[in-house]
């Protein structure tokens, strides 16, 4: 994996893009230890501060997709296949999040995008996929 993107919306808000987010995010390994820094990370830091450091622009339309990147240029990876780092997920990892104080109780849909490394091989005129 090079990054995760987490969105949150009320199930009754299907016709909208994500308009909610969690207060903090963390990714844990099988033992419950954080693999992104040892402490839950705020959505503001993930959304904006890291984006500034990586010199890419976020527009308001997709404001509530929260990126959790495991490599410096995960956005470039998505767009051009560039890869400088990744994390191997083996089925024991967990996503830990906290809701804001005052967050309205209800039924929400959580959607997690998982950006994965894959390789397309062209041998002769035939295509095949190799995936980690």
């Amino acid at each position, binding site marked *: 994996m*090079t990054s995760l993107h987490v*969105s949150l919306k009320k*199930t009754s808000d299907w*016709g*909208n*893009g994500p*308009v909610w987010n969690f207060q903090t995010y963390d990714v844990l390994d099988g033992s419950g230890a954080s693999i992104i820094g040892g402490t839950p990370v705020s959505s503001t830091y993930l959304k904006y501060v890291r984006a500034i450091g990586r010199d890419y*622009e*976020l*527009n*308001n*339309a*997709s404001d509530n*997709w929260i990126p959790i990147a495991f490599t410096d240029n995960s*956005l470039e*990876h*998505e*767009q*051009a*296949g560039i*890869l400088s780092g990744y994390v191997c*997920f083996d*089925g*024991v*990892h*967990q*996503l*830990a*999040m*906290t*809701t*804001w*104080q*005052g*967050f309205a*109780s*209800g*039924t*929400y*849909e*959580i*959607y*997690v*995008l*998982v*950006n*994965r*490394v*894959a*390789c*397309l*091989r*062209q*041998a*002769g*005129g*035939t*295509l*095949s*996929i190799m995936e980690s």
Partner: protein
Amino acid sequence: MTRPGSRAHVDVDTSPHLYPHEQVGELRLRASQNFTKNSSNIIVSYNPTTLDASALGTSGSYLDFRLLSGHILKSATLHLVVRNPSADTAIRWPQTQNLHFGCINRIEILGEGGSLQLQRLDGEYLNRMMNAVSTNALEHIIGSGNGVTVLASSYGEAYLPLLGSIFEHTLCLPALNSPIVIRVYFNGTAGWVDGVAPVLVSAVLITDQDRLAAREHESLVSRLRSGPPSDIRFNRPGFMRFTEQLAGGSRYVFPLTSV
């Protein structure tokens, strides 16, 4: 380490020695060597194999685009033209709710004539990729004139760029044995803000392609078809979707099961 002038020394900038597979036609390339292409950019549009006028209002319906002839793919954009059959009520595109791909459930990019899934681009993934579009450009994509609202008895259109797709990895269509199939699945009426879908008038997949000069094109195709395997690393997104009861000020832990 060898010194210049010794027999073992090879100056990669001036050596005429290349591996056999790098001497195809007029192209003399080393794996690490840059070259300037003699090419021009060309826009090629593809029509779907069939067009169902009610596709936008039918959950699970899909369109197929089959790409075989062409050049080197660089990007793709879906262009939809729709008609509002109502004489008195406007229809709003999901773009008004920041859900650019709301009417699309997913787009599957299939190789080997449709038998090999190269990428599955969920509507959510495509929607999120719009995050990388500058605010200024985004305003023009979703702004008036591009179909935010389809007035009663009128037509509307939308351009939906397939950002983050494998098309951005210079697939050379003539070097493939079988077509690339782009299958666009729709969400039905649930994908529209007011639960009313317009009539689909036309759907076109617009692609940007690199058209090499004839001799270089022939050499490249020959090299890809008969040379060693060529690998393209790309992003193959996966996803999890689940529903939970949430309350304020609480911590939740979810297993990442489908990765």
